[in-house]
């Protein structure tokens, strides 16, 4: 079982290398980064926490779902936990496939499912020193 979670900075070239194959003509990458601005304050960083055992299991299920829909897609992903500063990468998803349509579809599917299913939470750390839990879907 792959470890999808990490407390380390993400290594995008390493993820690309994981999926590279001579029969893959298209690779799609999604990179999520911590934004500076919220509607009501400047964000210094986000503290990511999770139900780690279930998050790993849910990522297993999401990747399995993606592979069942797009069997020729090669997939790599990592999600950071812990404190991630503004501008830093918090999540990276890479999907390679013989053709670009599959790569795009698989990559999009995984990030959308991640946002709906994986038990990870975000606490915004504002420049003022205040902290607040992020409500999903733009909260």
């Amino acid at each position: 079982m792959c470890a999808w979670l990490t407390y380390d900075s993400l290594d995008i070239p390493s993820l690309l290398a994981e999926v590279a194959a001579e029969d893959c003509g298209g690779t799609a990458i999604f990179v999520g980064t911590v934004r500076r601005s919220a509607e009501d304050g400047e964000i210094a960083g986000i503290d990511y926490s999770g139900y780690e055992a279930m998050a790993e299991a849910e990522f297993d299920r999401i990747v399995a779902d993606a592979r069942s829909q797009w069997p020729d897609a090669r997939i790599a992903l990592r999600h950071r936990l812990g404190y991630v500063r503004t501008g830093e990468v918090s999540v990276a998803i890479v999907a390679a496939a013989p053709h670009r349509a599959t790569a795009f579809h698989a990559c999009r599917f995984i990030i959308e499912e991640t946002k709906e299913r994986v038990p990870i939470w975000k606490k915004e750390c504002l420049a003022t020193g205040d902290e607040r839990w992020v409500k999903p879907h733009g909260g």
Partner: protein
Amino acid sequence: MNVKVLVFASYADALGKSELALNLPPGATVGDCLAEVRRQAGGRVPPAPLVAVNQVYARPEQPLTEGDEVALIPPVAGG
């Protein structure tokens, strides 16, 4: 039967703890477990949170067994 209940994020903050040990009657369901947590929490846990049993999302009517790990899942915000 004994079950372990995990709470996370804003729920853990509200409760002031991240884990509870419950002893439930035989045949208790996820819903029964949640009701007991809410009783002990004095209203600081929402009435219908997402719940997982042994790291899989579960419905309220799912029966529990000895040693189950029940988790109350606040609205997720990963990705």
